[in-house]
């Protein structure tokens, strides 16, 4: 049997389509964890990245923080937090947030810092406050890059939320972890296919958001 046969068998079995362990429930669970982790990471990374980018300093410190966070092994951190804190949402969120913050933080900083100075100076000359310069001049120009940082983070969170199943959590990782334990290869392949699909859907969502949110004038120059 090939991978495609396994996937077909998995999706063809109607027992996989409802209940606690059904595909719709697992997909929703997976999306909820991912969205929560991304929201926390954005709440930390965006303000810090945008502000440091606006003031054009602190880049080296940010790079250090990002490197340290990137070096933390996500899976190891998950197991460690689980052994320390026990079952709960916090031990799952800590490693996912640590994974998502560096790309959000670093790209937000880089994006704002590399905005062309003339329009910023013009805005300042017109008497705009620093907050308005950041929100109405720098952010719209930096938006494509800021979104690409968020996209990288989102895709990584969606694909990595799989391992939450190892510490008895739900989500699509359940199929992979349970399937491996039960030597049910059909389940494993089905779960893996679903996660890949979800990650690709995330890419598509961010592509659509960029189409809608980025101003046409900025888009043309990219």
């Amino acid at each position, binding site marked *: 049997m090939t991978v495609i046969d396994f996937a077909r068998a998995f999706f063809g079995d109607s027992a996989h389509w409802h209940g606690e362990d059904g595909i719709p429930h697992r997909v929703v669970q997976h999306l909820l964890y991912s969205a929560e982790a991304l929201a926390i990471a954005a709440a930390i990374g965006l303000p810090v990245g945008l502000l440091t980018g606006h003031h054009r300093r602190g880049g080296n410190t940010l790079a250090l923080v990002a*490197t340290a966070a*990137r*070096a933390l*092994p996500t899976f190891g951190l998950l197991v460690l937090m689980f052994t320390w804190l026990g079952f709960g949402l916090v031990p799952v969120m800590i490693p996912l947030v640590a994974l998502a913050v560096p790309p959000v933080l670093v790209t937000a900083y880089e994006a704002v810092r590399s905005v062309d100075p003339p329009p910023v100076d013009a805005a300042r000359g017109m008497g705009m406050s620093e907050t308005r310069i950041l929100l109405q001049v720098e952010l719209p120009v930096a938006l494509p890059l800021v979104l690409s940082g968020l996209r990288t983070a989102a*895709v990584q969170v*969606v694909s990595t939320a*799989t391992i939450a199943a190892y510490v008895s959590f739900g989500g699509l990782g359940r199929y992979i972890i349970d399937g491996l334990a039960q030597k049910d290869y059909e389940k494993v392949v089905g779960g893996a296919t679903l996660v890949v699909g979800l990650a690709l859907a*995330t890419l598509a969502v961010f592509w659509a958001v960029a189409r809608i949110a980025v101003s046409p004038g900025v888009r043309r120059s990219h």
Partner: protein
Amino acid sequence: MTGFFDIPSDLQHSWLGLVGLHLREALLPVLAGLVLSLPVAQLCVRFRWFYAPVFGVTTVLYAVPSLAFFVLLIDYTGMTESTVMIPLAVYSLVVLVPAIVDGVRSVPPETLAAATAMGLGPVRRYLQVQLPIAVPAIIAGLRVAAVSSISLVSIGMLIGNQGALGNLLNDAQIYHRPELAVNSVVTTAALGILVDALLVLVRTLLTPWMPRKGASR
């Protein structure tokens, strides 16, 4: 903490042995990714139309979760080291190709023209002018690839204890020795930071013309 470095015998390695194994499993794929991505990137630079499809494929491949990737490979390579190393090589490729393309493309046309005027052929021009100037961009890519590779190896534990230092996480649970999990996380993070610092050092050595104090990414 007693027994911090007492590794259970089922792992068949000392702590240093696990460190060596971890570095091997993490860095060989990065090396393979680098060797593969140089020609691919060069193709993208030479033929501009080639870049868009390559970029699309690599973005999609990067979206494949490591655990799913490992699991799908079990059918072909079994629960072996290769099952962990192949996906890591693919991820490295995905990070490195855009980095190298950007680096090589950032070489100013005047510099290339000067090289040609000095009588450098395409091969020597590539090796002696384009590649050295692209070194900072390549190293930036290598840093991301190496650090994430070191972090991802641990997940290999889930497919038949192929996770090197990650295997400590399993033992921490079955023997109720949380210090082993601490050991795994701290050692892996330290390895990541160490390799990152080494790559920065390599960049400084390879690009003596760059200003010593500069914003690093």
